[in-house]
């Protein structure tokens, strides 16, 4: 279940270390050693995170056997951004309508009060 591409991207992004790795790669390509430096976790642990990111298509790795520099792939992140902006628009506009509806309810309540006063 839930093997659509966006779910794969989201589960890869659901980890703070992996998000930090991606943020680091925004600066440019980096080797595993360079990536591991700011973290207090072992090299194999970093490698595992990189594998998850690579499988999700969020990063790609160079072919050179020794270095295999990691590079950020923005395509998938763009899909997340699109997903977010569609939802943002959906709710922002719904809440505009909600505010208008509340105004209507408030106005109705005022009218009722006025009617009652007149009676």
């Amino acid at each position, binding site marked *: 279940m839930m093997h659509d591409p966006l779910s794969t991207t989201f589960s890869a992004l659901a980890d703070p270390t992996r998000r930090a790795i991606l943020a680091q790669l925004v600066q440019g390509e980096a080797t595993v050693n360079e990536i591991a430096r700011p973290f207090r976790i072992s090299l194999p642990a970093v490698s595992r995170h990189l594998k998850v990111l690579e499988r999700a298509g969020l990063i790609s790795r160079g072919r050179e056997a020794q270095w295999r520099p990691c590079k950020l792939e923005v395509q998938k992140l763009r899909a997340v951004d699109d997903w977010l902006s569609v939802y943002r628009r959906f709710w922002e506009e719904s809440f505009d309508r909600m505010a208008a509806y*509340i105004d209507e309810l408030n106005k109705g309540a005022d009218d009722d009060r006025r009617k009652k006063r007149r009676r």
Partner: protein
Amino acid sequence: MTAARSVADNELLIVRTFDAPASVVFSLWSSAEHMKRWMGPKNFTCPEMAIDLRVGGSYRGMIKSAEHGENWFRGVYREIVQDRRLVFTFAWENEGPSAGLETLVTITFEERDGKTVQTFHQAPFRDVERRNSHVGGWSEAFDKQAAYAEKVARGA
């Protein structure tokens, strides 16, 4: 740094203040008749909405527009605190980029001087998974506790 922040940003947060007490704003989410009046973006209507407001109960609705046709959505209520807090899952039934992707919506309502600050948060499905396993853990513990209490009551 904008780029780094957008990398970490896979959640949605929208804070709005409405000119009504929390009990009213909460009711706009908890009553199908109210929800039909505002659910959906500009140029959409919400002709269908059914709500079974209890923890584990579900809701299902449909919004439509001339341009986009009918769009069905559904979810399950996870937490209900009258006039204060509402947590439910949300997913689209239709085809599209986020079809089948379940998200968790958390809304809190805070009344200030007769107005209500509504904090709306939506995050991807992973959080739901984690929450479910947590709930499973607790309910198992409660089952055991209940069984134990019965045993004690029977004087075993």
